[in-house]
């Protein structure tokens, strides 16, 4: 399965077209099979956030599900000290999640293969990682650093899922305090904006949308729709139905067309069923 190149240069790093270096990873020292981890320096045209400095971030693909952030940190610290590890389901730019949530409130993580962004302290670590020989596998679970899987892990998970209710209450309270504060700030800001729209010294009023105090149209999609429908209904009411002879004739014509259409539909359905031999009673 391994690339053909490997055989000739066994202690060489294996680099595949596209710039990725292939590292082997196995669960325990005596594992028979290895996963291939693909690493490359993180490079995008416009990285806005400072979380992934371009020269110090290693982009890692195909991290097996039993490697948690801590495990990955340990694994890669052999190339240099690690500043941060970010594991994600899919590659993508850094997302600012809203207010910091306690672990009990975060949505459950998917336990599949992950993509990792590892930020080292020094940029030399990147080169070290990229030139790691292919035939020296990274070992996840060693005696010094046991990684729990299976039943042990599930029991641990179950045990860790407990939280005392007063602690939970604390988390809730602090979040809600935070939330209220944000709400207040928001209200404050809006009020300020509104004040800006007041008359200035020279008597000018800055006119913007959504002036406080005036009865503006509600600013939502549903409201837009409602107004449109109202218009339509109005239009319809003004129309005359079955007033002129041609209108009457038209409705009759429509009726026959309707019957015909139904007839055709039924015919088609029958043809279909006949094709499937659906009329054999036995």
């Amino acid at each position, binding site marked *: 399965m391994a690339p053909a190149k490997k055989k000739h240069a066994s202690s060489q790093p294996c680099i595949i*077209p596209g710039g990725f270096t292939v590292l082997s990873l196995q669960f325990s020292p005596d594992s028979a099979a290895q996963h291939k981890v693909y690493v490359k320096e993180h490079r995008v045209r416009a990285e806005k956030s400072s979380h992934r400095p371009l020269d110090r971030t290693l982009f890692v693909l195909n991290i097996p599900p039993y490697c948690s952030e801590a495990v990955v940190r340990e694994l890669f610290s052999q190339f240099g000290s690690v500043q941060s590890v970010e594991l994600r389901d*899919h590659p993508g730019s850094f997302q600012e999640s809203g207010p910091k949530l306690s672990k009990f409130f975060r949505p459950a993580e998917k336990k599949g293969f992950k993509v990792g962004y590892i930020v080292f302290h020094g940029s030399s670590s990147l080169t070290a990682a990229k030139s790691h020989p292919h035939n020296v596998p990274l070992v996840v679970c060693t005696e010094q650093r046991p990684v729990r899987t299976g*039943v042990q892990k599930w029991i641990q998970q179950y045990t860790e899922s407990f939280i005392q209710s007063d602690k939970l209450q604390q988390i809730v309270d602090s979040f809600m305090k935070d939330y209220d504060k944000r709400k207040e700030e928001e209200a404050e800001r809006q009020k300020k904006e509104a004040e800006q729209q007041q008359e200035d010294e020279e008597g000018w009023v800055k006119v913007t949308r959504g002036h406080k105090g005036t009865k503006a149209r509600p600013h939502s999609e549903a409201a837009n729709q409602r107004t449109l429908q109202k218009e339509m209904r109005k239009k319809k009411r003004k129309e005359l139905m079955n007033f002129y002879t041609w209108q009457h004739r038209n409705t009759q014509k429509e009726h026959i067309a309707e019957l*015909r*259409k139904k007839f*055709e539909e039924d*015919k088609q359905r029958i043809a279909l069923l006949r094709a499937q031999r659906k009329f054999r009673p036995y």
Partner: protein
Amino acid sequence: MKKKLTVAEMIASDSSHEEEEDEAPLKAKRSKPGEAEEGEPVCRPVKLSRNDLYRPPTVEELNQLKEAESLFHCSLLKMQMEELLKEVTLSERRKQQIDSFIQTVTTLLQAVPDSPEVEVSDLSWLSSAVKIPFLPVPKTTKGKFHMAPPASVDLIGSYPLGTCSKPRIMVDLAVTIPADVLHPKDAVNQRYPRKRALYLAGLAQYLTSSSDIGTMRYSCLHGNRLRPVLLLTPPDTSSFTVRVHACPPPGFFKPSRFHPQRNNIRTEWYTGLQTSQSESSEPPTPHYNSSVLGDLLPRAHLQFLSAVSSQCPAFADGVALLKVWLRQRELDQGTGCFNGFLASMLLAYLLTTHRISNTMTAYQLLRNSLNFLASTDLTVNGISLAKDPDSTAPSLAEFHNGFQVVFIDPSGHLNMCADMTACTYKQLQHEASVSMQFWDNPTVDGFHSLLMTPKPMIRTSDHVFQLCELVKLQSSCKKLNLLSELMDHSGNYVHTVLPFLLSLLQRGLGQRIHLLTHSLTPDPEWSVDSEAPKHKAQPPLSFGLLLRPELAASVLERGPPADSPKAAEFRQLWGPRSELRRFQDGAITEAVLWDGESMCQKRLVPKQIIAHLLQLHADIPESCVRYVGAMVDDVIKTGSEVSSTGEEESLLVVQSYDDLSRKLWRLEGLPLSITAVQGAHPALRYTQVFPPLPLKLDYSFFEREKISRSLVPKEGKPCPAYITPITVICHMEGSGKWPHDRLAIRHIRTAFHIRLGELLKNDHNYTCRPCPTHLDVWKGGLVFRIQVAYHREPQVLRESVNAEGLLVVRDNEEAQALEMATIHKPLLTSTLHGLQQEHPCFGAVCRLVKRWLAAQLFSDDITEDSADLLVASLFLQPAPFTPPGSPQVGFLRFLHLLSSFDWRNNPLVVNLNNQLTAADYTEIKNDFMASRESLPVMFIATPKDKKVSMWTKRAPSVQMLQRVVMVAAESLKVLEHQLMDGSQIQDVRVVMRPPLDVYDVLIHLNPKQVPLLSQAVDPPAVNFSRGVTTGSVAQSGGALPVIDYNPVSLYLTELREAFGDLALFFCDPYGGTVIAVLWKPKAFISMPFKTSQVSARSVEVTGEEVKTVPNVEAILEDFRIMGEGLVKSVEARTEKWSF
């Protein structure tokens, strides 16, 4: 969104792949539906051009359209019937074949040589290759016989009339025995029937030498051994059969001799004993009489029917439809059937009495005849076709004395329904009235239920039982003192005793049943060189019971007061089982008490009654009665002392829930009040396969968690018993205090969970565990999982502000999932709970069905909710059946529904609470047709969900549905075969053992870590201690147990998350110890290297091209690593893999 993100990475990695990636998913999307629809055509909305639609109509077309609109629900039904008729009528080619064969046979028969005259009992003139088709009991009879060429050979019956239809094409040929072979006194003492049999044997002997005849067999008309017939098929094809009847010359016997009160078999001759009875005191022999008389009249009947049918152009089509209807209900064959001849006669009766007019269409003929059958009871008020019967003809009352069902032919002498039992007629009436009911219902696909759905007894009747050793019926004849009846039936003890057994059972079962039916003995067939089979050689007699669910399971049979005159009758019926009992109302009455503690035992009370009555009155031992009523129920049986199928346990759960709900309502000190408490778990609608049992825990088995002192599973010990959390949704009052932000709402909900937990702990001492998502309450050995819900939350989840600051409402999965959990599931639960109150066996059917689905590893494809809905549809729209009255019949019908429903072209509409009208049905159907391809493959519509089929949106996929359908069909076949045939191996669990050879990898699990091991289809002999002790369960308090901890499901989730795009994982959630893995067909196609698609793949480099393939060895290793402690072995069946 996802697209955008990946592009950023793509630029960095390799821009050359960008284009490909853009295309690939699109292609996949496009190809997927196309592939699914391959092979079979699919209905697409019709597109007619404007010109076609609006061209001026011709008068003819206008009439046709109008007729279709007014006569039928839609023109569809009319067309369907026309198509059906095309399928059953004989083709011209076939007719030519028949005509030419008839020609050959006729010429052959005309040349039968004469033979010298011998005694009737002398069979030496017959060669050994041909036997006489007759059971000579008693052996001797007087008379002379010789062979002579037939006086005439004529076609009779359906073929010349034009009502002959496929399948089983029978062409009747009457061969007239020359008058000099017979003697006018031959009608007495079976002389004529014997001569007729001899004559047939003579014909057979002559025909064996001819090469123009294919096969030659004997049979007898409607199972009547006195009326043998000779079956001939042409040598080149077996698509039709010619039935040769031997008849006396017309008018040879005087019809008045065969008056139902007359005797034509002398006791002295029959018993061989000298008796001093005079001829006048001999018992009448109505059945014998009518069997001889029946031979005299076929030509007259043909003339009569031809005359009638020539008046009515749709006659033949009407008869054909009626025959199809009868055949689907298994009423058209065998002894005492309502055959095509009777159907023609019935139509003739309706036409001659002007109940239907000659100009009606076949559709109307069928409808009117069913209406007539439904409303007329021929067992009480017989009908007669005779216009002006001669003075010798018997009166209707005399016919009623001799026969159970009376329908008199045009001559006025013959009762055409002589062999029919009252039960068969009642069944016919029942079928007709059921058919009329659903025919009038515009929401039912009338055509399909009326004419296309077969109704075998095992799927129609709630309970079925069989009498196996028919020889034992001889002793019942003796016990019931039926000598004269036996004489009348010329020794056929089965048919003699049958009416008596039926009336006995009818009396005994009384109010418990709607209907008692019995199988019609099929006509025996045997080759001409073997002896006629004995009466006992026929297949076992089957009886079907249609139960009245509210009364059938009652253990008490309350009789009349001890001093009333009816008491003696009651005691006579029940024998020693009847005893005097004093009731709470002070009455002292005769009563019979049957055994039965749990519901599943009570359901078998009819079995006890039948066994008891048959033993007491008919001397039939219990070992001969094979009762098929609850054979399948075994797989959902629980309980150690009293076996139970879960009704009692479910009731306990529901009661406990009701108590909790009451306590929740009464809580004080909540900031907002509770507006609704709703159950949202299958256990709360009686459909949980194994309802949770209250458990008492052995604390020493567990570890303790440090802070809350809750129990935690111990490493190294077997997995603790699984405790199902029973979901309860608790809606909180809406208020301005609720925040308008998704995260804040979640936190407030958590606060409610905490508060509720505190209150429940303080007020009722329940151990509680609040979490952000729910609150677990440990109450009386059960765990309830309370989820607080706020009705505006889905709305909040849907709202978002877009870039322009416009508030948009967009549906998303999160909101849907929340609505599903807090609105739809509770609603479904309460609706189905209502259905259970109406139909007591609804829950049991659901449990059986879900057990089967789980055992066949389909429980992830057909979810619990959709399975419950499918079962609900069986109860809400049972046409052409009645709602299932026992778990077994419900299960069989479910399998039939699953395997025969046309999922591709039809939506399954489940009319919960009868909320849908006919207009809604049309709307659903039209919407479905219009967007078939984008809808789920299994489309289930309910009143609350007409357009999207939310319960089956996620699963099953096309492929899985195909497999489910296939397995269901196979299971149904195996099961019905087993249930109806006592000689098969009796192991219903066969249908619960999935075939594992189709899967690529099997992961065997360590039984120690499978908590539900004891629920397996084949429960293991040894089980592990799982921390549960026996004893009474404390109502409150105690340490919190291990809740919802199931290593198997945790493992499955992890596997699916990691390898879901490479393989499918199947497991029986109820104690399955194997996980079956199936690689997806597309998983092993090598793909170009893409950053988003390298999970568990290894690369292959060829030049500059990089391809990836799954790293199978590592994946198999991962299966082991991820399930450390749970996985026993991973069995990779590499020999099956093809990539």
